[in-house]
């Protein structure tokens, strides 16, 4: 059963996975670049991480090497920790300035 899934996954050329991940990653980068809402920026960053995760899974499948997939678990846990901390920071900011627009945060400069 598992062999079959691997097999099917391999019917799509690896380049396609790379392109897909690169595109997802770029969408994430663009999101970070053009959005001003801290939460949406944060979601875009998560998208970048997930693009990497997807590619990692693909490589792992292609090489039949479990190491890549175990790494995926680590990434997920780290991402979850990042979510926890990130949202906490955003909530803290929202309590203080009643907004999460990053453009309002420019007191530290020059």
């Amino acid at each position: 059963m598992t062999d079959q899934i691997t097999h099917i996954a391999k019917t799509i050329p690896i380049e396609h996975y790379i392109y897909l991940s690169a595109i997802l990653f770029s969408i994430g980068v663009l999101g970070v670049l053009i959005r001003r809402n801290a939460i949406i920026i944060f979601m875009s960053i998560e998208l970048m991480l997930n693009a990497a995760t997807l590619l990692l899974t693909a490589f792992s499948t292609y090489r039949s090497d479990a190491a890549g997939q175990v790494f995926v678990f680590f990434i997920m846990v780290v991402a979850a920790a990042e979510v926890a901390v990130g949202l906490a920071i955003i909530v803290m900011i929202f309590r203080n300035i009643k907004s999460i627009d990053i453009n309002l945060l420019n007191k530290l400069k020059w």
Partner: protein
Amino acid sequence: MIQNAWLIPLLPLIGFLILGLGNKFLTKSLSGIIASGTVLGSFIIAVTIFLGFLSGENKATTINLFDWINSGTLHISFSFLIDQLSMLMVLIITGVGFLIHVYSIGYMSHDEGFTRFFAYLNLFVFSMLLLVLGSNYVIMFIGWEGVGLCSYLLIGFWFKNQDYNDAAKKAFIMNRIGDLGFLLGIFLIYMTFGSVNYAEVFEGAKGFASGDSVLVVITLLLFIGAMGKSAQIPLYTWLPDAMAGPTPVSALIHAATMVTAGIYMIARSNVLYTLAPITQTIVLFVGLFTAFVAATIGLFQNDIKKVLAYSTVSQLGYMFVALGVGGYSSAMFHLTTHAFFKALLFLGAGSVIHAMSGEQDIRKMGGLKKYLPITYITFLLGTLAISGVPPFAGFFSKDEILALTIGPFSNIIFIVLSFTSVLTAIYMFRVFFLTFHSTFRGTEEQKHHLHESPATITIPLVILAILSTVGGFLGMPRIMSEHHFLSQYLAPIFEFSDLKSEAKAPSEFAEYTIIIVAVVVLALIVLWAMNRYIKKASVPPADDKQTPALRNLIYNKYYIDELYDAIIVAPINWFGKQFNNIIEIQMIDGFVNSIGKTVIWGGKTLRLVQTGAIGFYIFVMVAGIIAILLYNFIR
């Protein structure tokens, strides 16, 4: 005894530590004794070693204290090189240094920072000894930076005055420019020879052809360092400003010792310089130009210490000329005599300033002869020495340099240098007569306070006066004596260079001519100056009076400070502001007015791109990443 040479720098260091740590607990007299005592101790040790060299009992020795760095290809040991050259310098530093320490006990007696002052002085002596004793360029550099730091601390010693702070800062920054060259030179030496030890470097250099471009670059870089430390054009403006410090500091650091570090460095590296004739020529002309320009500036200065400062710059120029024509031992000779008479002149000036309650303007002095008899006589001897009147010290050393310059570059050097020495005599006698002769021009209150200085001040003056008088016999010209003591003493150091360069000895005719012409011209100058400043009692005009353009130009030191402001300080400030604004875009509004249109345009453009602070940051990051990737793909 020579194995104990490490004690020489250690004693002042101990003195510094005691004074620095016990700042609060030591009485003034005790700290004076500790400071002078440690330097005297070093001096005595140095003398015994020196005598050993004279008797031929001591040979050049390297004393290895500990391995400083030892990893892979990099070996640097903390070791001292005890040889004829370094011992000569040590004698000057500790000898003159001791006298100045004693002098300072009297001079600084009313200052609240007495102990701090002596701590700095001892630290300075330590650093200077490290500089001359080090057996490799890195140790020399450490001492080099150390003396720079002490100089900085001592110039700004009376830090309540903002001008003094600025002077201190200027000195430090100018020196840093020089140090940059020195440091790069050291790196290049390490790269070329794989070592920074003198012995190995010079041995390696002997394998190079004369004029090899690597050697030229190395020597040029080292020379930049020397220009900074020894106040040569274009890095000389800090020295006159450095006169803001207490007078003993000017005498010790800015006349006798630290500023000669550049001379020492080149003399030490004589093998490299001899193999780089192009650099030698540059050294020669920089020295010549400096000697001349500084002397002309000195003609119209009215601050007694400023005159002496420009005179120091000018005399250092002499030494560089000597180095430039390959007369290393002549340069060291002049360095020695200059240490004597310039220290004397500064200390004498200090005594005058002390008596005048801090007044430094010679226009407000005059007629001090009868109030300060000892200072008067010693200052006269110093003036005679620096002007080159036979048989005083300056005469021998200066004429030796003059004699060396006959010949190369169709005598132009000789002519300019001779003219400079005429100028030297003029400004020195001008100062001398204005200060001590004619009638007193200060206020009544000052007149009331006039008194001869205490013994701690006058005794060093007398000793230095004696040295300035007889110091010249260290190196008599060939026509008077078969035995040139100093050049024979130093011969082992300059062996290679003397072999390489063709015989430098001038003809007997030339030496006689120089001596006779010198005496006649000097006599004329003295007569002229006496006529002008004593008989006519002419006093230089006050600052605000209209003066001829040329004189004005010279009086304002050729506007060199202003020029520096325009071409160096201003651009650096401009860049600082520029960066600040483009990058930290939010600031635009605050600074718009002070910065050029470029920045406004750049700021406006960038502001359009930017949606907010973090957004902009991330934008630049992404742009950077894209640029990096593109760069890699295009390549």
